[in-house]
């Protein structure tokens, strides 16, 4: 039989109109040319982050800031009468060493002279106190230049004096990035007196400031710094107290929740569609779980932009306790038709199929895995130390896998487990999903925050045969956020 079949079929030609497929073929091939390649979307979040990074870098080192401070420095540095901008780094250090050798009293007098026009007076106690300390170092003109390079290059520059920070903050217009702990812009054009008597018994610092423009200056923090410096023994407050956080962060999170499967059956067979709709009632959600690794940018205005690499798993069980109708060919029940054509009688086998109804329970255990890249925008509402961050964005699914296991329980009680074919896969009709959520964030350490989150996700549309489905999940989770690098 095998040989006969093979010989007959090998050279058999089918009589058909091959040109009727040409139209479809042309249409499909032309349509495919215009399909947008969604893979390019992967580059979008990277591009946005690079832009943010570049923009942020420009914000950190404005040239105008250096010139502003330099201008003020020249007021202090009458003796040398030089512009700090013209002094190279090496020479800068030498000058600093030299300045350390200056007579202390002479320096104090100079301070007095310098402060008087600005309306700041130091009482004798402060003079005495400062004379005991390394006032030369703290008043070193080089240390007062607050460029980023001087902060890092000069060891002395890291130790900024009270006077330095005070003078610079009161007498200059700050154009640098505003630190987190600085209050919003406010101008005080009136006479302002700072009475820091509460600091300590013998440590009174009556300082009067007249006609000062205080911009973006946190008096409370400054007072705290002063107190800290007095209590810790004559150490001058450091400028690092008002450092800003690096706006880039990495975050790791996990969440688990419930999902709803929304499926549509594209069939004209109403009965079949009805049966499928009934089947839906037996479908249960097990869980939807997601893990994320985010890279984000937190702008000082409160807005944040983040993208992540996400791995999601959805597990579901379908429990069809219904009568299953099978269509199959049973030779014993074959029905034959007779066609009588003139004198010849021929026999054509029935083309209809036998339908057999059997009772069985079918359980499908399905696992869908999604690999996606969500891109989200958030806004931060601060409430004491905690932060509330609503976020929303799109998610690009670049890979989807499906794995299934079926348990069939027959009428006679026979139980059979089958692994579904791994190549049996759903197609992604479009790759874009939606993701939105709410994070409640709390600083655990200076650079590390902990957060709880609630997230809604809508998967892209999946198709398999006549079925189109989409998953909507709602989950709760937690994670950690690490701000990258050191503070500015």
């Amino acid at each position, binding site marked *: *039989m*095998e040989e*006969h*079949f*093979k010989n*007959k*079929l*090998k050279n*058999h*030609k*089918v009589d*058909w109109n*091959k*040109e*009727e*497929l*040409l139209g*479809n*073929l*042309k249409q*499909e*091939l*032309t349509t*495919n*040319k215009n399909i947008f390649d969604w893979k390019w979307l992967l580059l979008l979040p990277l591009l946005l982050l690079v832009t943010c990074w570049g923009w942020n870098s420009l914000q950190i080192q404005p040239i105008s800031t250096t010139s502003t401070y330099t201008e003020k420095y020249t007021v202090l540095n009458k003796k040398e009468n030089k512009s700090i901008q013209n002094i190279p780094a090496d020479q800068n250090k030498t000058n600093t060493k030299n300045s350390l050798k200056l007579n202390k009293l002479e320096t104090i007098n100079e301070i007095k002279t310098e402060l008087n026009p600005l309306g700041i007076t130091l009482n004798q106690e402060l003079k005495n106190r400062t004379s005991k300390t390394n006032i030369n170092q703290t008043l070193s003109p080089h240390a007062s230049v607050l460029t980023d390079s001087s902060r890092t290059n000069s060891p002395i520059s890291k130790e900024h004096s009270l006077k330095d920070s005070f003078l610079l903050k009161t007498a200059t217009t700050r154009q640098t990035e505003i630190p987190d702990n600085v209050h919003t812009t406010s101008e005080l054009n009136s006479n302002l007196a700072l009475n820091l008597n509460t600091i300590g018994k013998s440590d009174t610092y009556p300082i009067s400031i007249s006609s000062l423009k205080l911009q973006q200056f946190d008096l409370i923090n400054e007072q705290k710094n002063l107190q800290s410096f007095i209590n810790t023994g004559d150490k001058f407050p450091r400028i690092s107290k008002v450092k800003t956080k690096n706006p880039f962060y990495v975050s790791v999170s996990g969440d688990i929740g419930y999902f709803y499967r929304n499926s549509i059956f594209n069939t004209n067979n109403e009965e079949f569609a009805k049966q499928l709709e009934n089947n839906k009632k037996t479908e249960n959600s097990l869980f939807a779980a997601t893990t994320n690794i985010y890279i984000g940018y937190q702008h000082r205005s409160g807005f944040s932009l983040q993208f992540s690499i996400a791995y999601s798993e959805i597990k579901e069980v379908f429990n069809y306790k219904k009568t299953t109708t099978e269509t*199959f*060919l049973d*030779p*014993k029940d*074959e029905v*034959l038709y*007779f066609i009588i054509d003139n004198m010849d*009688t*021929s*026999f*054509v*086998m029935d083309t209809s199929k036998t339908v057999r109804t059997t009772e069985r329970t079918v359980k*499908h255990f399905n696992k869908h895995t999604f690999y996606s890249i969500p891109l989200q925008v958030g806004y931060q509402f601060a409430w004491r130390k905690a932060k509330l961050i609503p976020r929303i964005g799109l998610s690009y699914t670049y890979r989807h896998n499906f794995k*299934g296991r*079926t348990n*069939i329980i027959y009428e006679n009680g026979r139980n*059979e487990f*089958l692994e*579904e*074919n*791994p*190549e*049996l896969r759903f197609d992604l009709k479009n790759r874009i999903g939606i993701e939105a959520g709410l994070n409640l964030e709390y600083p655990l350490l200076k650079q590390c925050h902990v957060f709880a989150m609630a997230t809604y996700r809508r998967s892209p549309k999946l198709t*398999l*045969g006549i079925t189109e489905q989409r998953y909507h999940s709602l989950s709760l989770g937690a994670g950690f956020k690490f701000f990258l690098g050191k503070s500015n």
Partner: protein
Amino acid sequence: MRSKTKIKKLIKNCKKQEWSAQKELYLLFADDMMSIAIRYSKDLSSAKDLVQETFLTFFKKIDQYDENKGALGALLSKILINNSFVEYRKNQRIIFTGEEVFLDQFSNETSVIETLEAEDILNLLQKLPHGCRIIFNLKVIEGYSHNEIGELLEITPSASRSQLTRAKKLLRDMINKSSSIEKRINPNYKSKRV
């Protein structure tokens, strides 16, 4: 006429997405593909879909085609056979359930079988369940071994063997049934048509 140079030229133009070349290539190979597709499909319309899908797959991935690796006809038939599995898997959630063992009970029906023409054989094949049909085609017509079929369909060789036995049994039963009825109606009947 199919000359190597002509096909080479057509492929070159197909790579440039020229419709005229794609059309010509399709017309050259469509009949051959259909003769294979009809064996793997349940009817003519499914076979047409399969042929269309085969050419679409080929034209979309034509950049990967290396002429030195094999003849175009062989490649197209390979795509077609592979597509028939994919299509089958998409439409069937479960394939090759269990490993039912059918006894290979071939009766002496050789005289009847020999009278069958290609059209009759195709009619019989189209009545087979899809899984059986695929395995029967792969084993009997294409000459694959059970191990190869197992690898292709991701089933065990013994499952392939049992499906083949089942296919043969079904074919034999269909032939017997039709010939007995025909004999009953027409005692002088010599089995010609099924």
